[in-house]
């Protein structure tokens, strides 16, 4: 596939992610922050997000697995996850976190467990999508092309 085609694919793919709500305007902000001095900025930040989130999800799983669930702690973790996911633009993860927090307030364990599942699911989905995106980008760069900037009109 030649560069032009690859770039086209990338653009379409990225657009779909926005349309489906996986990503929001904040992701665009990240992309715009990337420049020559920081050519891998987005990848770096997103990787950081992945590492951090996985840790949080583990902590959450453990916290909800306790005999006496400490909802404050759970809420703190969810809040953190909400903050970081919103910072990189992982919209669906963020929304799942918001729902999660509501149940934390109610101290409803069952519902919280359900929410945790939901959050995990959304997280793995967006992780997958982003990894695909980055792969596409790498292919373009390897082929000598440049990454087209998204103009999403957000």
């Amino acid at each position, binding site marked *: 596939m030649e560069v032009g085609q690859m770039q086209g694919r990338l653009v379409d793919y990225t657009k779909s992610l926005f349309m489906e709500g996986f990503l929001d305007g*904040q992701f665009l*902000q*990240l992309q*715009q*922050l990337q*420049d020559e001095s*920081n050519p891998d*900025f987005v990848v*770096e*930040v997103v990787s*950081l*997000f992945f590492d*951090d989130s996985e840790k949080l999800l583990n902590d959450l799983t453990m916290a909800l697995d306790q005999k006496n669930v400490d909802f404050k702690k759970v809420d*703190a973790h969810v*809040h*953190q996850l*909400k*903050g*970081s996911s*919103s*910072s*990189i*633009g992982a919209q669906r993860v963020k929304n799942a976190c918001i729902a999660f927090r509501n149940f934390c307030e109610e101290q409803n364990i069952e519902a919280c467990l359900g929410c945790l599942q939901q959050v995990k699911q959304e997280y793995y989905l967006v992780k997958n999508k982003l990894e695909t995106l980055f792969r596409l980008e790498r292919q373009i760069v390897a082929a000598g092309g440049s990454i087209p900037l998204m103009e999403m009109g957000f």
Partner: protein
Amino acid sequence: MNSSGGKGSMSTASSSAAWKAGDVVPDQFPAGLRVLVVDDDPTCLMILEKMLRTCLYEVTKCNRAETALSMLRENKNGFDIVISDVHMPDMDGFKLLEHIGLEMDLPVIMMSADDGKHVVMKGVTHGACDYLIKPVRIEALKNIWQHVVRKRKNEWKDFEQSGSVEEGDRQPKQSEEADYSSSANEGNWKSSKKRKDDDDEAEERDDTSTLKKPRVVWSVELHQQFVAAVNQLGIDKAVPKKILELMNVPGLTRENVASHLQKYRLYLRRLSGVSQHQSNLNNSFISPQEATFGPLSPLNGLDLQTLAATGQLPAQSLATLQAAGLGRSTAKSGIAMPLVDQRNIFSFENPKLRFGEGQQQHMNNNKQINLLHGIPTTMEPKQLASLHHSAQSIGNMNVQVTSHGVQGSQNNSLLIQMAQPQPRGQILNDSAGSHAPRLPSTMGQPILSNGIAANVSTRNGIPENIRGPGYNPVSQTSSMLNFPMNHTSELPGNSFPLGSTPGISSLTSKGAFQEDLNSDIKGSGGFMPSYDIFNDLNQHKPQNWELQNVGMTFDASQHSNSLQGNLDLAQSVLVQQGFSSGQMNGQNRSAAVVSKAMFSAGDCTEQGNAQNVNHHLNNLLVDNTIRIKSERVADAGPANLFPDHFGQDDLMSALLKQQEGIAPAENEFDFDGYSMDNIPV
């Protein structure tokens, strides 16, 4: 959205250097703005750093509040603005906000993914100059430099205004002086306050003409000289002009002293409030004192001074004690535990504190009881003194103590009493804090007169706020802002950029004190309670105080973003105090805001003051019942301390109600009208 394009013209290369080098804003400004960003979330931290760099700011990031605080402490002038997350594992963002406000007086921006009204309000009341909701967009960061400029601008403005305001206020005040030390009731308080203000105003006015704000660094020695002078004069009579004369330091202006005095008073107040707070002494302490409060006040001041003079009581301790004493009068219940600690501090001076005045002792006893509420022997005064030393604890303690214990005996006596550990101890226990709330009326006078600016204002009930650790009593003392008096006029308040909410911590202490006041304040309903004080002090116009703005224009005057910006400290402090219980409701908010406004008003004028203001607020709230009253009024508005004064009603009342005590104090601080020269507290 790279802002680099826009700033391209600026010489980025040298911008940081230029910016850092001097106090003059380089042409490239805001490029090179030194930002410290604190967030435990690594993803956000990285993004923020990148965004800020793109804005051509100089960024330092850290993921722990403690680290940030130590960085700031090590390099007081190394940063221009701080951005902090609200939820952090090692320290609450608001707490950090308070510390910074009190110690460094830097503008602080809070941020969080939480956009609940309650949390945002908290930011306002704690003195944050802005509140950003995550995810943060770079556009929001591009303009943060405005907070830095605004803060400085306000400081200058206060400086200038103090002069003009004073005149107007002064006239009326003269008449009031009479009562100053006679009765503990509010009336006296007011007059005494006014008197003080008048003095201050007059003095300040002269200085303002120069309109120069040389940055005075209050070194330990200088401060010692200051405290010695204050003690010599008597906290009640310590007016900047005389202090200046006594100190006889070339190059020091009356304004410098005035602002430092303000801070110092706040500090003392805070100390007393803190101590009280901790030990719950307040309650007990306050009650008996009330009666004695009035007359004793003069004594207190003397005692402390004597003690200080004798060298037994380290200047700082004395200040602390004084602050505590001041704070005590209000006798807050809040003091609870700190007293215990305080006792230790004061214990050393006992003999001195005694003063010998019958009243004082009496008061002390009472006071002590209150303060130490449970501490059988420890002499509170000592505690206070020791508190002072301990610096951190002192800040807290004092605040509490003042607010609580002092109730009856005027802050000074409080302090003094503390010193007299032994005999009193027992008495203290007896008193049981009930009195504490009562003090407000009585206390006001004596303590305030001391001038110690009971800033320590330990609010009732706000035990935790007491700044304690973050607050360095030593450095802080300077912050005791008596400001309420002077500034009111100056603080036109809008720009409260105080941002740094140092006051906040102080407010908390006030809380305890506030309780007493609150009841009063509530009545006033107007925001202005604190204003009244100011009015009395110098400014008749509450407006100056920011409070007005607060109430009304709160939003308008403040940043578009949030009131927080302006009010920052004052409000937060006030609010904090009152709200510790989470009462903030709509009213409170406004009140808080108002108080902040007031608070910030004061601060705005002086950079240094900002901190002071905060301190003051705390102090105000806490200790000086007398002070608090007047101060509170100004600050908290709601505090109704001065029902008559306030005009602002709504805000104030709301504020007061909520804060219960926190509010008023704040107002007072800010405005002292002194254009505190940059007392780098």
